[in-house]
């Protein structure tokens, strides 16, 4: 099976690991070979969380620089930081809702302008899909559903070997019951947003 390499970057607390779990579960249930690797050291202390997910016939489950087919960023600055994982054929999906790191807040290094940030990513990759995932999550009444919004956008691109139904089933299985409905709604909103934000 063709190898597809996906990187998800986020700030600790944004639900990156849950999104990876859903993807893993969906792959398992549909018989797609999958391997994932995460760095969760100081995730809860506001650091960066990176998941690497490799589908298909590969043994390795980490992704070297320049070798990601798809990059999903839950936070625009982190998407920019992950550009080293991209190449000219990479598809990038990012939320446009910034979470300023302490270094930007205290003014030692300014947060890059969002327009410029998008222009850079666009220039160096095949395609950028960018929208405010936090606003869409808020629409579902669950601000924590940013992960599901972006998962919806990812599935819309058809870049990873999982179907809408696979993923929706996995969302229902893995979400806490109270959040299952809002997570599915968030997934749909992200799916639609990706159609129009390319």
């Amino acid at each position, binding site marked *: 099976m063709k190898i597809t390499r996906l990187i998800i970057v986020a700030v600790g607390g944004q639900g990156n690991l849950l999104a990876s779990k859903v993807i893993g579960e969906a792959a398992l249930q549909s018989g797609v070979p999958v391997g994932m690797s995460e760095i969760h050291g100081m995730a809860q202390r506001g650091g960066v969380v990176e998941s690497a997910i490799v589908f298909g016939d590969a043994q390795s489950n980490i992704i070297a620089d320049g070798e990601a087919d798809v990059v999903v960023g839950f936070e625009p600055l982190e998407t920019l930081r992950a550009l080293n994982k991209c*190449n000219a054929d990479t598809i990038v999906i990012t939320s446009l809702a910034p979470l300023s790191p302490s270094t930007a807040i205290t003014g030692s290094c300014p*947060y890059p302008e969002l327009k410029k940030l998008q222009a850079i990513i666009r220039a160096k990759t095949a395609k950028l899909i960018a929208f405010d995932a936090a606003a869409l999550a808020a629409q579902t009444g669950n601000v924590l559903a940013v992960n599901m919004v972006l998962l919806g956008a990812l599935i819309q691109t058809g870049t990873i070997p999982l179907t809408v139904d696979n993923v929706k089933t996995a969302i229902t299985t893995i979400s806490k019951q109270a959040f299952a409905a809002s997570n599915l709604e968030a997934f749909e909103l992200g799916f639609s947003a990706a159609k129009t934000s390319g």
Partner: protein
Amino acid sequence: MHRLLKARPGQKMLLLGNEAIARGAIEAGVAVATTYPGTPSSEISMNFFQISLETDLYFEYSTNEKVALEVAAASANCGVRSICVMKHVGLNVAADALLTLAYVGVKGGLVIVTADDPFMFSSQNEQDNRYYAKLAGLPLLEPSSAQEAKDMVAYAFDLSEKLQEPVIFRTTTRINHSTETVIPGDVQAPQPRGDYTKDPFNHVPIPAVARKLHARLLNRLKEAEEISETSAYNISTGNGRWGIVCNSVSYKYVVDAGTDLNMGGKTKILRIGFSHPLPKALLKDFLKGCEKVLVVEEGEPYMEEALKAFAQEEGLTLPIKGKSEELFSRLYEFNPAIVRQCLAAYFDVAYTSPAVPDLSDLPEIPQRPPTLCAGCSHRATFYVVKKAAEGMETICPTDIGCYTLGFLPPLSMGDFLICMGSSVGTSCGFSKVTDKKVIAFIGDSTFFHSGIPALINAVFNNHNFTLVILDNGITAMTGHQPNPGVDMKALNLEGYGHVSIEAIVRAAGVSQVAAIKPYRVKKSIAAVKEALNYKGVSVIISQEPCTLYAKSLKKLRGKPFFVGEKCKNHKNCINELACPAFFIQNKRVKIDPTLCVGCTVCAQICPEKAILPLKEKS
């Protein structure tokens, strides 16, 4: 029922490497599990802890790794299958026990899990713990995947019982924190009760006994080598004249690189999973069939040096390479691209590396260092101590925990660190040879782990410093594990004692002891000043629960604050505290009400008293 207990044999599931290790031990009927938490090993013991609440498994968070190993050494010597889990540097702490336990041996299976951390994702060094197996003379197993980790842990218990020696099971972060498909196996019923047969002439290593035991250990090592020669964990594939010897996660990268470079038919791979003692005859045979050999191993040239020695014994002159300036580094971790590149270079295979975009024109990207949480009590303590020490020239040895982050600006409290507990020991040295005021920081769990002997040393040898014990009532950084100072009854967990830090400090002979509540800024500064002015050893115990933990228990009582109209934009709050709840909007400081936990520290230090409680909307 716990997920790992519910798992049905034969039914594929996705498991984190650490979950797979825990499941492997359960399948082997482990009855005793001990640990001191440490990334990347922590989820193994977290799972044992949860499983112990539902089964007969005895699990404990021990005060440190040495104690954890001693507990497990004794239960294993009663014939009870036991496992002891720690991060790589934990084995340094346990080394004293380990090296003589190898002489004394075990009766029931004892597996020691050491989780190495190449690249130091969350560690202070990247030591290669394979050398501990060599140093102690113990068998060493290294898995390459989650499935293999599960199977191999179960096998490690059998191997340990066969050899009557503990087995070291070594992982790296990429094994611990990878999630892969695993097929669970059958669970063997644990035998939780054991018996001890007195055997002092084999169990009490006075010199005369130890001399005999060392000879016995060497015999057992010989037996282990024979097992390694035919071990199913030393896997040979392919049949070319180019040889690759690899281990652990590198094996995956080698297999993928071989595919990417179309090297099938030209290479043969020997994956070593039983890596101490190395299968000498197998490796010599392998060398004899090769034109040249590349050794792919993260960390130190452990196998490479052995292979070169084996080649010398056989009079072989083929090139054997691994670590060199042109090939693999001893630094950090590998990835598929590094391995592909080195294979292509060494075997002279055509290869164009993928085009990484030119990033030279990127604007400077602000770093996102981990920070103390919004409202973290450590921030309050650091602020208080900093204010109390104003005007003094200080040296601040720090220790291992979330509070290590206090070394970052603007708090900048943390000057020197070596290992768990080193804040106290090094304070003795700093205060002896300098005239500066020495102020040490240590967390509650680290104090129990290895701060106490150094504190006693300080009292006995009459040293002069202030020790600040940051007591947030939990082992926070590794994921909120309990420690002896935690009130377990409050967590609805029965059967635990409780140890008072203050009682220990006083019993150690410290007379200048004060407990503070760091959110009460003025009062705390006064108490710390008194401690700092004391000649001799003084101790401040700063008590406030971990905010993140309190939040997870839904025990946070504070209400969010906001910056009111009186604000004159001095920015003392943001510049001196740098709490992540602050942000700047239109050049004014704002507080994110979803992050603010109402610790009130910023409200207390605001010169305009402009930071006020946010009234709940009616």
